């Protein structure tokens, strides 16, 4: 599904280019859930953004292969229509753009790409109503401008709501669990679990083991200094929760 080989990424900072990812490699197979943990500023969001195709990053080396294709040359929208989804760490507020209308446009863009006919407003509404219920989201969030005035938790749930409607193949969730109350965390986790399937893969970026007790990961990776420094099974998350990232310094020493 996703194969990242020796990825080196820079951003243009105030004092010239700055290396954020330094030789990161990762393989995610269909049906798998991979958790990525790591200290603040270690490059987790950078990785997510590079997978999704955000401008402003320069890949100096390496490749990102998705479904057998190197996607680095593709625009974000092409990747999205091909099934890559990024749940944003900070979902963007977009005044004047109706959430429901936007989502229907996005879904129809993807359907057209897959040779399917557009969903009309009625059929779309039906689909949406069912999902809203599952995620315990208020109806009126649909009629509001995208993320405008949403609470932090509503924004995160709205991301999962978009994901549920768009049914992507590769879901990258950047700290979707941060800032959620207990019920919201459960709703988000249920949303993810409902989408789990042998054809779909997840990359979950998180700081907390709590999410991973709801969503059982196949692998846990620690990202530090721009590359993956440790990988393990679900028990690694529990260990990190307990001991923190102190081992990184020891390793460095």
């Amino acid at each position, binding site marked *: 599904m996703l194969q990242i080989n020796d990825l080196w990424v820079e951003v243009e900072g105030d004092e010239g280019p700055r290396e954020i990812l330094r030789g990161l490699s990762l393989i995610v197979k269909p049906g798998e859930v991979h958790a990525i943990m790591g200290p603040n500023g270690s490059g987790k969001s950078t990785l997510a953004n590079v997978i*999704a*195709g*955000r*401008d402003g990053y320069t890949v100096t080396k390496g490749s990102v292969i998705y479904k057998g294709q190197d996607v680095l040359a593709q*625009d*974000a*929208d092409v990747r*999205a*229509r091909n099934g890559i*989804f*990024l749940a*944003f760490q900070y*979902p*963007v507020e*977009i*005044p*004047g*753009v*109706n959430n429901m*209308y*936007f*989502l*229907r*446009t*996005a*879904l129809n*863009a*993807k359907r057209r*790409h897959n040779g399917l006919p557009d969903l009309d*407003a009625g059929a779309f509404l039906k689909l949406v109503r069912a999902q809203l219920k599952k995620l315990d989201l208020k109806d009126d969030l649909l009629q509001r*401008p*995208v993320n405008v005035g949403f609470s932090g938790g509503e924004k995160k749930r709205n991301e999962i709501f*978009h994901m549920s409607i*768009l049914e992507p193949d590769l879901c990258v969730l950047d700290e979707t669990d941060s800032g959620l109350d207990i019920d919201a965390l459960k709703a988000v986790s249920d949303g993810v679990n409902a989408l789990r399937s042998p054809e779909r893969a997840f990359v979950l970026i998180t700081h907390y083991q709590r999410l991973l007790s709801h969503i059982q990961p196949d692998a846990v990776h620690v990202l530090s200094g721009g590359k993956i420094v440790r990988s393990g099974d679900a028990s690694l998350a529990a260990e990190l929760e307990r001991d923190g990232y102190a081992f990184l310094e020891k390793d460095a020493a």
Partner: protein
Amino acid sequence: MSAVAAYVAAFAPIAGEPDWWLAQRRAALKTFERAGFPSAREEFWRLTDLKPILTQTFLPPHTVDGAKAARLVGEAAALVPGAWRFVLVDGGFAPALSDLEGLPDGITLVATHTRPRAVEPLTALLPDGIAALGVAFARDGLVLRVSAGLVLEKPIHLISVQTEAGCGTHLLSRIDLEGGAQANVIETYVGGEGAFLNGAAHINLGMGAHLTHGLFVRSEATAQIFLRVSARVEKGARYSAVPILLGAQQSRVDLAIDLAEDHAEADVQGLYLLNGTQRGQLLTEITHDGYATRTREGVKGVVDETAHGIFQGKIAVTERGQKTDAQMQSRVLLLSETARADTKPELEIYADDVKCSHGATVGDIDAAALFYLMARGLTRADARRLLLRAFLEEVADQIEAPCVQQAVRTLLATALGVSAQEVAA
């Protein structure tokens, strides 16, 4: 022959016009001959591209292309469904394309050539050569009078079509709402291949009257469209102007609003959406000359390619303008490196107890929002359109009159290439 001399040579009486009117036109021609065209050294013409006007003579049209007129009128009419339609083709009233069925008693809606006295405020005051030229070559326009207390149920849609390429059309109009009357008047300008349109209107709003006045420029990409409005707003009356600059090579809308009496209000919600080498210029001068008068002005612009958008907004408060409350806002998005915007707000205040503010921003499309939309699968073009529409729709949101608001939404949908049905969704 210079452009001025060519106009003088082209001057001719119009069949059936009264002698006194011919004399007035002739006098205006003299004024034009003396004054010539405005110069780029004058503040209010500095940012206007005068070259096309100076180097070319736009003579009066001869022949009307009836098929083209009918087609353009049909398209424009769809903007304001259920309106009384007043059509001017190449500057002359076209009754066959108009629809004035069922006008109630108490409203006068006629062509200027039948009542030239109504436009005397425009002939008496000739601020510059272009105004003088407009009177000298005026053929027609709209004269509207709504009697006291009458609220017009349907909007009035003036459609001005220019069918003959390279010609000059000069319009003089007059709108009068007596005390307490209310009306929505929309003017749509279409056609005008390589042509010049020079329109002037004088408006008087009696006590407590309210006029919403749309000025929609949708002319062809080679047209020069210059519109000038002077409005006098009496006690407690309100003038709501909605200038929308979309078409034309160059459009210039100049609004002079005199809040002449206490509690008079001006409300301007304008926008320009320009690309190619277009230039769009909105000038407003709002004079607060009564007690507790109020202005709300918002202008939004989107400029792409090498186009140039201009907003010059002046708020003047006289000694009589105590308790003035005036707000002026302008926001522009530049979509390319070569696009240009000039925003010149100006306050001139001679009263001490006033609340006046202005703000202006020039920016780019929000990159984070663009990425968010694209990351959900929208093409860059669709994502941009959606964001631009959202930005410009805020202008429509501020318009109170539903028919004018709807017309602006339809205009935006067409201009941005999204269906009106989508906009409604």
